[in-house]
C-alpha cells in the first residue's frame, strides 16, 4: 500500500475530514458572518469581533468537552446544570472576597472532574446508558444546587473571578482589547487538537467506533470513556468561569446549554454514536450557533419566531451534510447499524 510522506498524508487527512461532513459547517459559518457584516459593517471592526468572541467562548469550550464524549459514543446532558452549579457555588463560596477566588476556582475544577468521573463510571461500569446517566446527573445537580442555596443564588463573585470572562489585554493597537476568553479558547482548542492526535485521542475514537474491538486490542474502554467525561466536566467548569465572568450570577445561568452544545457539535459534522468527527469542526459548530443568534438580532427578527428559524437552519445544515456524506460514500453499512454497535452500551 502507498504510504505517502508525512505532510502529504496529513493534508490528505485534513481534506478527507473536511470533505466528510465538516465542510458544511465552515461554509455555513462563513456565510452567516458575511451576511452579518453586510447588514452591519461595524461587526467586522476588531472591537466588536472581540465582543462576539467573548460571548461565544463558553459555548466553544462546552462544544470541545461534548465532542470528546460524543466521539466516544456517549452523551453528556449534565453540562448545562454543571455550568450553572459551578457559577452559583463560586458565588456562594467567594461571596465577594477577593482572596478566596483562586482556591475556589481550583475547587471548582476538582468538582467538575469529580462530576465527570461519576458520569463516566456510571456509564461504563454500571452500564447505564449515558443519556440516562447524565440526565440523572442533570437533575441531581439542578436540585442539589438550589437546595444548597435555598432556591436562588446567594453571595457574589469577586472582581478577580470575573477577569477571565470580562477583561482582556488592553491597549493592543488596532484591536484595542484581546479578551482573555479568546486566548483561553484558542489555547484549549489547540490543546484539544493535539490531544486527538495523541494515542489517547486515537483510542478514544476507536472505542467510539467499536468498543469490543478496541478492548480486544488492549484498550481500557471504560477508562478512556470515563476520562472523556472528566474532560467534559473540566471544560464545563472552564466555561462556567468564563460565563460567570462575562455576565455574573443569575438564577438561570447555564440553563439549556447542554442541547446548544450538542447541536453545535453535530453541526460540526460529528456523528452522534461515536467514531467519526473532528474537534476543530465541533468548535466551528459552536461559533456557527452563536453567529446564528447574532444574525437574528441583526435581522431584527421578532424574538418569538427565532426558534423556528434556528430549528430550520440546523436541520437543513445537518441534512445537507448527512445526505452529502451518504452520497459520497454509499455503502451497505451507511444505513445499516454496524453489528458491533450493540456492544457499545
Amino acid at each position: 500500500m502507498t504510504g505517502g510522506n508525512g505532510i502529504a498524508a496529513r493534508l490528505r487527512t485534513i481534506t478527507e475530514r473536511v470533505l466528510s461532513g465538516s465542510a458544511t459547517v465552515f461554509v455555513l459559518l462563513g456565510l452567516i458572518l458575511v451576511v452579518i457584516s453586510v447588514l452591519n459593517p461595524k461587526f467586522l471592526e476588531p472591537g466588536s469581533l472581540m465582543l462576539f468572541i467573548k460571548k461565544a467562548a463558553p459555548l466553544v469550550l462546552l462544544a470541545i468537552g461534548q465532542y470528546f464524549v460524543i466521539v466516544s459514543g456517549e452523551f453528556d446532558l449534565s453540562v448545562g446544570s454543571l455550568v450553572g452549579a459551578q457559577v452559583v457555588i463560586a458565588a456562594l463560596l467567594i461571596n465577594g472576597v477577593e482572596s478566596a477566588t483562586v482556591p475556589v476556582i481550583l475547587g471548582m475544577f476538582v468538582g467538575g472532574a469529580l462530576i465527570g468521573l461519576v458520569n463516566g463510571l456510571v456509564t461504563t461500569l454500571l452500564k447505564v446508558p449515558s443519556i440516562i446517566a447524565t440526565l440523572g446527573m442533570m437533575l441531581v445537580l439542578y436540585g442539589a444546587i438550589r437546595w444548597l442555596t435555598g432556591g436562588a443564588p446567594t453571595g457574589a463573585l469577586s472582581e478577580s473571578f470575573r477577569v477571565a470572562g470580562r477583561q482582556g489585554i488592553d491597549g493592543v493597537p488596532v484591536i484595542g482589547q484581546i479578551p482573555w476568553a479568546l486566548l483561553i479558547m484558542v489555547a484549549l482548542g489547540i490543546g484539544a487538537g493535539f490531544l486527538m492526535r495523541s494515542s489517547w485521542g486515537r483510542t478514544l475514537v476507536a472505542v467510539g467506533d467499536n468498543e469490543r474491538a478496541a478492548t480486544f486490542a488492549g484498550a481500557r474502554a471504560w477508562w478512556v470513556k470515563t476520562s472523556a467525561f472528566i474532560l467534559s466536566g473540566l471544560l464545563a467548569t472552564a466555561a462556567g468561569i468564563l460565563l460567570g465572568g462575562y455576565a455574573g450570577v443569575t438564577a438561570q445561568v447555564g440553563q439549556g446549554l447542554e442541547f446548544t452544545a450538542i447541536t453545535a457539535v453535530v453541526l460540526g459534522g460529528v456523528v452522534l454514536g461515536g467514531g467519526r468527527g473532528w474537534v476543530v469542526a465541533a468548535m466551528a459548530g459552536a461559533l456557527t450557533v452563536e453567529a446564528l443568534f447574532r444574525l437574528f438580532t441583526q435581522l431584527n427578527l421578532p424574538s418569538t419566531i427565532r426558534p423556528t428559524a434556528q430549528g430550520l437552519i440546523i436541520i437543513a445544515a445537518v441534512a445537507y451534510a448527512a445526505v452529502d456524506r451518504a452520497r459520497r460514500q454509499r455503502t451497505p453499512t451507511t444505513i445499516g447499524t454496524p453489528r458491533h454497535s450493540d456492544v457499545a452500551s
Partner: protein
Amino acid sequence: MTAALLSMTDIQKSFLGVQVLHGIDLRIEAGEVHALVGENGAGKSTLMKILAGVHRADTGRIELDGAPVAFDHPLQAQRAGVSTVFQEFNLLPDRTVAENVYLGREPRRRGVVDTRRMVLDTDALLADLGIEGLSARSRVRSLSVAQQQIVEIVKALSYDARIISMDEPTAALAGREVTLLYDLVERLKQRGVAILYVSHRLKEIFDLCDRVTVLKDGRLVESCDIADLTPDELVRKMVGRPLSGLFPPPLPDTQVGTERLVVSGGGNDQLDGIDLSVRSGEIVGLAGLQGSGRTEIAHALFGIAPFTRGTVELDGRPIRLRSPRAAVRHGLALVTEDRKTEGLALNQSIASNARLVLDAVRSIGSSRRARRAPEILSSLELVSRGPHQEVRFLSGGNQQKVVLAKWLVTEPGVMVLDEPTRGIDVGAKHAVYSLIRELAADGMAILFISSELSEVIGMSDRVLVMRDGRLAGQLDPAQLSPDSAESAVMALATGSTETDVPR
C-alpha cells in the same frame, strides 16, 4: 443456443469513481453449481450483491430465462427467485430463528401475523434439511457461529428460490457442518436449483461445482467446466502466477527453543483441564469441531474470559492474564475469529487500525513500531486505496490483512491466531503462511486455530485436538503425515478414539 436460467452480460460497477467490475459476463443453467473464484477484492461479493439487488450495476444486462430484469432492492430479486447468502451475517441477534427466517414476509392470518405457523414452518424447513438441535424459537444470539450460518442458508432456501448464491458459506464451518452443506447443495441440485458458489476452499470447489468463473481485479479471466481444470491451473488463473507448494516448509534457520507459554490445568466455565505448551519458534495447531472450545482457549489466554483454574507461565514465570491489556503487555497477540465485531474499527482508516494496539497500550517503542506498519501491510499484499481509506470499504480478505498487521506491528512473543485465513484468498493465504513461518523463524511462539484441517496439519509442528471444552489429544510430528492425519484428527475431535496428552 437456448436462454440460460441466468445470464449477466457486460456488468460494470464502480465505487466512488474506482471501477471494481469491468464488463463481467456470467451464464448459469438450471441445476448447475457454478463456482465464482478470485483473489480478495476480485469483485466476487460485488457481483453477487448486484445480482441480489443490493448494488445496481452501472451498465450491463441481467436476464432470467431470457427476460431482462433489473433489481433495485433485494426484495425484487427474491421475488424473482434469486436469493443470497451474503458474506457478512444478516441475522438479528435478538430475534428468534423463525422471526429471522420469515423477516419481511411474516405469514398472516386475517391481517394478523400468525406466529404459530411461522414457527411450525421454520421447524419443518429445518427438519427437511436434516438439521437437529436448532429450535425455531431460540434467539439467534444464543447460537454458535456455525448454527448462525445454517440459519442464513435456511433463510435463503425459504424463498424457494431458483437461484441461490452463497458467498463463502463455509467460511465459518468445520467438518460436520461442511458435509451437511454438501448434501444440502446436492438436494438443491436435484430440485433443479442453480447455485452460485463463492469460496476460497479449492477442495469444495472441486467437490461441489460443475462450472467455474474466475475473476481477477474485477475482470473476467475465464469461465469453463471444472472438469477441464486441475487445482494448480485454477490457482494460477486466480493468482496469475503459479504458487510453489501450498504450505511453505519451515525456514531453514528455524529452531524450536524453550517452552515459552505453558498452561497447566487451565479451566473456566467453558474449558477444563487444559494443559498445553508452546515453544519459541514452534507452531502448535489447535483443531476441533465448531463449538469445541478453541476460541474459548484463545479468549482464556487473552484474558477475555480468563482461566479460573490452573496456572499460566510465560518464559517460566507464572503470570495472571486478567484482561486483554495485561495479555498485550506480556507480549501476547490474538487475531480474533470475527474481524468485523472483534478485530476492526470499521469507520477508521487502515492506518489508524494498524496502530490501534500501539495506541491502546502505550509503551516504549510504540512510535518506532508504528512506522513499520506500511511496510508490513504491503508485505501482506493489501489491496487498498491508500492508508487513509476506511477499512469498511475493503473486501473481506483485505480487512483480515489489516487485523494481522495490527498485531504484527506490536512484535509479540506469543501469537494466537483464531481462523487467521478465514475468507482469505489463496494468494493471501500463502502470504500469511510464509509470514507465520518467518515469525516462527524469529522465535515467536504460535498457537494456530483453524477449521481447515489441511491447513492445521500442513502448517503445525504439533496439533492439539479439542472436544467439548477439553483437550482430546495431540498428534506429534510423526503422526502428521498428510494422508493419515486428517482422519486421525477427526477421530479425536469426534471422540471415536482417545489418546492422552503427554505432560
